[in-house]
């Protein structure tokens, strides 16, 4: 039995994190949270979560950054928006989950070879390169970086899809790919300028 | 436990439902019994309540008359000492009750058959618990069975 100290000191709190969450896009109303738990109840994934969305809201606004960012819940969110449309305080919970994912990726709060951040990164890289996504290649890239063996397991399905004409190895590309680069550069520049 | 035939007393007790006559003060115990009703509390159905304006109205004759007419127990409910709606009626009840209990004792009527409780209008739960408790205690004692004398005598053997 592994015993851990579970008491939390105020020094464990990160007030900056609490400030950040209530000022980030979508976090405007997090302080209004009544902790009613409707989000957790309506979430189809909450039954697998270590911290339910309700608890994440509380921990976030109290500034328990470590607990929040290392929670599995932020990765389990499929952005189905069930919580958000029902929230009695109109808190943009789904968007906050994105914000927490970003923050977790930024601060590397995830296990090695954890596929979700890898997928997100590969996705963005592919868009940057081609302007569009080619699903077949995206899957290959993600599995190469996370769990090669699963790629093999999927090969049967891949083959069937390929036969059905639903999988192509020809990468999709847009014409003016340079525009994508320009835009990304512009975003980066503005972000820097405005310190967003 | 070994199976055995029930004695007559056990038999009568098995089917015996005590009859208890209650005299409730209009301002406290009667209200508490009303409150027990509005609170949908459940208690034994053995008590028949007679409303009086004050427990001080309860003439010891009423208690004896109830016993004489088949009651197995009598329950008087009044206001707590100092709380009488009429200032001091309940003290008179208390004094009469204490003397009456001695008479009942001399007359061979068990202590548990006659009870005086102070129950305020708010104490619905005490109405419930007192009634249930009293019914169980009287049930354990068995019927009082004070049948009128004529019948009793004709039933009695004259011989020694």
């Amino acid at each position, binding site marked *: 039995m592994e015993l851990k100290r579970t008491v939390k000191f105020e020094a464990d709190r990160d007030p900056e994190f609490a400030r950040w969450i209530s000022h980030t896009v979508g976090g405007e109303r997090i302080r209004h949270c009544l902790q009613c738990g409707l989000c957790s109840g309506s979430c189809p994934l909450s039954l697998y979560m270590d911290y339910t969305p309700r608890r994440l809201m509380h921990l976030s606004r109290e500034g328990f950054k470590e607990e929040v960012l290392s929670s599995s819940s932020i990765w389990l969110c499929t952005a189905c928006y069930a919580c958000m449309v029902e929230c009695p305080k109109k808190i943009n919970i789904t968007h906050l989950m994105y914000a927490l994912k970003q923050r977790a990726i930024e601060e590397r709060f995830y296990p090695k070879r954890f596929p979700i951040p890898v997928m997100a990164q590969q996705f963005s890289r592919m868009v940057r390169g081609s302007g569009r996504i080619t699903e077949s290649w995206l899957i290959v890239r993600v599995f190469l970086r996370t769990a090669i063996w699963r790629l093999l397991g999927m090969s049967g399905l891949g083959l069937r899809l390929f036969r059905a004409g639903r999988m192509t190895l020809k990468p999709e590309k847009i014409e003016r790919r340079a525009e994508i680069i320009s835009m990304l550069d512009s975003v980066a520049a503005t972000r820097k300028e405005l310190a967003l | 436990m070994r199976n055995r035939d029930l004695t007559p007393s056990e038999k009568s007790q098995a089917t015996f439902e005590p009859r208890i006559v209650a005299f409730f003060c209009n301002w406290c115990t009667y209200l508490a019994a009303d409150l027990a009703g509005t609170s949908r509390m459940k208690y034994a159905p053995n008590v028949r309540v007679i409303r009086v304006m004050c427990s001080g109205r309860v003439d010891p004759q009423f208690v004896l008359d109830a016993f004489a007419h088949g009651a197995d127990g009598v329950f008087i409910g009044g206001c707590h000492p100092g709380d009488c709606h*009429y200032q001091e009626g309940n003290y008179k009840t208390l004094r009469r009750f204490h003397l009456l209990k001695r008479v009942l004792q001399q007359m061979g009527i068990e202590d548990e058959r006659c009870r005086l409780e102070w129950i305020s209008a708010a104490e619905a739960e005490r109405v419930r618990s007192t009634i249930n408790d009293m019914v169980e205690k009287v049930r354990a004692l068995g019927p009082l069975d004070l049948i009128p004398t004529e019948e009793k005598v004709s039933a009695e053997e004259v011989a020694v």
Partner: protein
Amino acid sequence: MPEIPSSAIESSRERPRIGVYVCHCGTNIAGIVDVRAIVEFAAKLPGVVVSRDYKYMCSDPGQALIQQDIAEHHLNRVIVASCSPLLHEATFRRVLSRAGLNAFLLQMVNIREHVSWVHLNQREATEKTKDLVRAAVRRVSLHKPLQKRRVSINPHVLVVGGGIAGIHAALTLAEAGKQVYLVEREPTIGGHMAKFDKTFPTLDCAACILTPKMTAVGSHPRIHLWTYSEVVRVEGYVGNYKVKVRRKPRYVIEDLCLGCQECVTACVYKEAKNPDEFNLGLSKRKPVYLPFPQAVPQKVVIDPQTCIQFKSGKCKKTCVEACGDRKAIDFTQKETIEDIEVGTIILATGFKTFDPVRNPYYGYGRYANVYTSLEVERLINASGPTAGEIVLRDGGQPKAVGIIHCVGSRDANTNRWCSKVCCMYSLKLAHLIKERTGAEVYNFYIDMRTPGKGYEEFYDRLLDEGVHFVRGRVAEVSDWATHPSEKGRLVIRVEDTLAAFVRRIPVDMVVLSVGMEPQPDAQDVRRLFNISCSTEGWFLERHPKLAPVSTFTEGVYIAGACQGPKDIPDSVAQAGAAAAEAMALIDAQFVELEPYTAFISEDQCSGCKTCIPLCPYQAISYMEEKKKAAINEVLCKGCGTCVAGCPSGSIQQNFFEDEEIFEEIEGVLAYA
């Protein structure tokens, strides 16, 4: 007093023709009691002419049914088996009156509260109902026509307690032209509300809305304001109460004192040394003082416990000197007793706050920076001891403040009830503290209870202000530091039940949101006024829903927090309601009382005098010339104690005659 018509007496002597009416009360009764069986059973009882059931006997058609039967079947007695007589006896008595029968030829059988709502077994409930109906039939046969007694109402009203409820009741009545005696124990009116800084949820300044009402009371021509006074005796009955009020000496002649306070300045004590009651000891006052600047009346008071003149008799009496020709100071003043006569009484004696010393784990009294919420009200108040600045007892300014809810509430170890106001005032204090100090403010709550107009919205506002809400009952406040950040601070240990872990939160100031309790002398007061208390000690209303300001004593009403925890709007609403109830009685000019009085048959009385000491109202007197006792019907309240005590059975009580009760006893037992 109106006479009973001789025809009514005649008809009651005729052979009983009884109508029995069994109410279903929807399914309330019929769901458990076999109503049909009761009707059939009753039909066979001696004297019963009509036996019927109806879905709602108290409804118009139900009443019409009885009225019609009385006419058609020449009924002269009526039994209604329905709810408690305390609910509908009056209703059905009116039915009898309308049908030309004397109202008291009715007997109610309580088969709802005493049967269907408390039993589950249909057979048992039905058997019990039969017994009760049989008893009623036997009893009602003996009923005699009776007439309610009319007594006149003295239009003067006594209001006890000068908090917001008493103030509002007194003003309402006085504005309506009634003479009001307002008796307050403290030297000033204002009560708890005068101590508050702001009121939730509007954040109105408490003094700004209260003091105009206080001044209005002080100057109203129809209000006799007696502060520093207490009711010591109440006699009489509705409409005709005789009250004794003790007026404690304030050693200042009220009529002469102008409230200039020159005596206070002149007092030989240059510095105030005595804990100031109004500021809960957070500041000091002199032996001669005005409780607070807006006190009403604006009259100083001298505290004999601390005044040198009283302690040694050797004071220079600079106060008397300062008062000069006005000669308002009178060290020889004695307590006086005033006798007044009023018709109605409104009790608005308020509450006390819970003493958190009873929860030692919160460190109140041990740690200087643990405060009660009431103390913080004074601390925040601009006219308070710190002129509104939140300065701690150790002189510092708090950077973090913990507000602990439910102190002395919702706790089987102290008080089980919810004090209702604490959530809201805690939010208010959180707002004010954060606004004034910028401190981190933590609210520790079990549930947030904010029902009320604008209350939930206020909570939402506080959430937005970034106040921390930690759901959990605080386990401990201590100065035991287990982390460098906790050194020298008060550490609150609590499970954050929303986060599901225990937290230790260091703060500089702890506010204990103390709950409301009955006044410590509530039991004495209620005995004085002959009303009841709930088990907790709150004054008991006649009906929790339908008669919330009435009591079981006619003419005595309750308002405000003496009846239970309550905020200002609720207290004011109740005060208005109590005033209206009193006025209804006054304007009716008379009240009808139950005719349940006792009477002595003169030729039977042996003059043994046993009954005379039994009557607490001195209603029984001994007629020397006849050598018999006699009962004054006006003074008799109808308890029946003398009836039970008369050794020769020569006293009877209307509606509760021995024979009637014997019939009832033998009736319930005449089964099988």
